[in-house]
C-alpha cells in the first residue's frame, strides 16, 4: 500500500461528500416538500428541513384518492406497480432458467436456432417497435390487464444468457454422477441446479425488480384506465407545469412512495444488487 498524505485523504472525503450531496439532494428535497403545505411549496425557496404536514399529506394521498388521476388511491397504484415488478422479475427468471437449462443440458435439432432467436431480441427493445406491439396487444385483448403489463416484458435475452453462462461452468461430472445415481432431468434441475443457482437468482431478482418498477413507455402504452396505472405513470398525470392547480404536496408524497420501495430493495439487498450488475457484465 502506498502511503498517502492526510491532505489528500481529506480532499477525497470532501469530494465524496459533495458527490453524495448532489446524488441525494433531489431525493431529500422531495421528502422535505412532501411534508409541507401546498402554500409553502408554492412560495420558493422551500425550507431545508421537513415541515409538520407528514401525517396529513401521507394519509390524504394513501387513503384520500387524488383527483387528477381519476380518484384512484396511491395504495392501488402501489399495488399495480408491485404486481408488475414482481411479475416481471419472477416471470423472467422462470422462463429464462428453463430455456437456458434446455440449451445447455440437452442436445436437440434447432437448438442453436432457438438460441439465436432468443439472443437477437437484445436488439429489439420495445422502443423500436412501439406501434406494431401495441396493435398485437389490442388484438389479444391485453390492454389494461396485468398480463399485458407483464408478459411482453418477460422475454429477454439477458437473463437467459446469464443462466446459460453460469450453467456452462457446472462440471459435466456432476451431470454424469446424477445420471449414474438414476436422477432424471427434473430431479437434477430441482435438487442440484436450482440450489447452485441461488445467488444468481437473487442477484437477477434485484435487478429485474428495479427494471420492472421503473418501466415507463410500456405501461404508458398498455394502460388506459386510471385503475391500471403504475405509480410512475400516475405521477406524470398528476403534474402539470402549465396550470397552477397541481397538488404539489400530494405529488411529492406520491413521488416519495414511488421511489422508496426500489431504493429499499437496492440498499437492503446491496450485496446481490452489485453482484447482479457487475457479474452479469463479464
Amino acid at each position, binding site marked *: 500500500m502506498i502511503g498517502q498524505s492526510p491532505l489528500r485523504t481529506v480532499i477525497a472525503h470532501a469530494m465524496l461528500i459533495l458527490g453524495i450531496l448532489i*446524488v441525494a439532494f433531489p431525493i431529500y428535497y422531495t421528502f422535505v416538500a412532501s411534508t409541507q403545505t401546498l402554500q409553502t411549496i408554492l412560495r420558493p425557496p422551500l425550507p431545508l428541513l421537513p415541515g409538520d404536514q407528514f401525517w396529513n399529506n401521507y394519509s390524504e394521498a394513501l387513503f384520500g384518492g387524488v383527483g387528477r388521476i381519476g380518484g384512484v388511491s396511491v395504495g392501488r397504484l402501489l399495488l399495480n406497480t408491485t404486481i408488475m415488478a414482481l411479475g416481471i422479475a419472477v416471470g423472467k427468471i422462470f*422462463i429464462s432458467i*428453463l430455456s437456458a437449462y434446455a440449451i445447455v*443440458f440437452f442436445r436437440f435439432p434447432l437448438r442453436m436456432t432457438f438460441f439465436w432467436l432468443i439472443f437477437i431480441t437484445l436488439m429489439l427493445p420495445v*422502443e423500436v417497435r412501439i406501434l406494431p406491439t401495441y396493435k398485437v396487444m389490442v388484438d389479444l385483448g391485453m390492454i389494461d390487464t396485468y398480463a399485458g403489463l407483464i408478459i411482453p416484458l*418477460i422475454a429477454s435475452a439477458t437473463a437467459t444468457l446469464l443462466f446459460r453462462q453460469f450453467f456452462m461452468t457446472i462440471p459435466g461430472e456432476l451431470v454424469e454422477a446424477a445420471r449414474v445415481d438414476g436422477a432424471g432431468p427434473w430431479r437434477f434441475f430441482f435438487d442440484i441446479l436450482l440450489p447452485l443457482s441461488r445467488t444468481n437468482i437473487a442477484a437477477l431478482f434485484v435487478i429485474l425488480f428495479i427494471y420492472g418498477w421503473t418501466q415507463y413507455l410500456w405501461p404508458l402504452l398498455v394502460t388506459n384506465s386510471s385503475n391500471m396505472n403504475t405509480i410512475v405513470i400516475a405521477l406524470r398525470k398528476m403534474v402539470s407545469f402549465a396550470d397552477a392547480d397541481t397538488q404539489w404536496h400530494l405529488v411529492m408524497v406520491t413521488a416519495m412512495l414511488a421511489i422508496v420501495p426500489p431504493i429499499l430493495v437496492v440498499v437492503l439487498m446491496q450485496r446481490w444488487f452489485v453482484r447482479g*450488475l457487475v457479474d452479469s457484465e463479464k
Partner: protein
Amino acid sequence: MVPPASSPRSGSVTPRVVFPNKVLPYLLVAPQLAITLVFFYWPAGQAFYQSMLRQDPFGLRTKFVWFANFRKVLADPAYLNSIKVTVVFSLATAIVAMCVALLLAVMAEKVVRGKGLYRTLLIWPYAVAPAIAGMLWLFLFNPSIGSLAYMLRSFGIAWDPLLNGTHAMILLVSAAAWKQISYNFLFFVAGLQAVPKALIEAAAMDGAGETKRFWTIIFPLLAPTTFFLLVVNTVYALFDTFGIVHAVTGGGPGKTTETLVYKVYNDGFVNLILGDSAAQSVILMVIVISLTAIQFRYVERKVHYG
C-alpha cells in the same frame, strides 16, 4: 501472469454430458420462444412491412411504396433536427455521467474508512425511475416554484427551461446523467479494484506522482470498462430516457428536445403518421443493432439487463 489451471469455461470446450430426452427440451424453451415470437418478431416484422406502406390522409387506402417513407423521413428537417438533438443529448449525458462517476470512484478508492457507507449512499439514484428523476429535477428547477431556479434567478440568470431550449436540454441532461451516476460508479469501482496493485507500487517507487500514476497506468487499464460504459450509457441515453423527455419537456420548447425515440412515439401515437413512424422504428433498429454489434465485437461484454 500465470493463467489459472482450469478456466471456468472449460466445460464449453469439451463435449458436454447431456440428458437424452427428445421432447422435454422443446417444452422447456417453448414459453420463452412463444413470447419472443408473438411480442418481438411479429411486431418487428410488422414494423418493417409498414415502413414500406403509405396511407392516404383518410386512412382509407394503403399503398406499397418501397423505400419512399425512408427517403421522406431522412429528408425531413424535423427528423434531421431530432438526430442532432439525440446526438447532443446522448453524448452530453454519457460524458457527464461518466466523468462524475469516475471522479467519485477514484476518490472512493483512496478512502479506507466509510467506504461502504459512501457506496450505499451513492447507489440510490439507480432505483429511481428515469421519468421520476426528470420530474424531481424539474420540481427543483421549474421557473415558478423551483427552489433552485429561484436561486439561479437571484443570481441574475434568466432561467426558464419551459421556454428556453438550451435550458431545457441542460435540465434533461442533468436529470439523465444524475440517474446514471450510480451505475457507472459501481463499474468504475470494480474496474479500479482490478488494476494490479504491484504495478501502481512499482510506479510509485520509480517516483511517479499520484496524478501521473493515474493518467499513465490506471486510466489506460480502465479503458475496457470505460468503453463498455460508453456504449451502455449511449444506449441508455437513446432509449431509457424516453420517460425523462416525455415527463419533463414533451419534446419542447419548439422541437429542441425531441429525441429520436420520442419522435417515433409522437408521430405514431399522437400524430398517427404510421408509415413515417414505422420507417423511424426501422432506422432505430439499425442503430441498436450496430451499437450491440460494436459492443460484442470490441468489448465482448453484454448489454444491460432489459
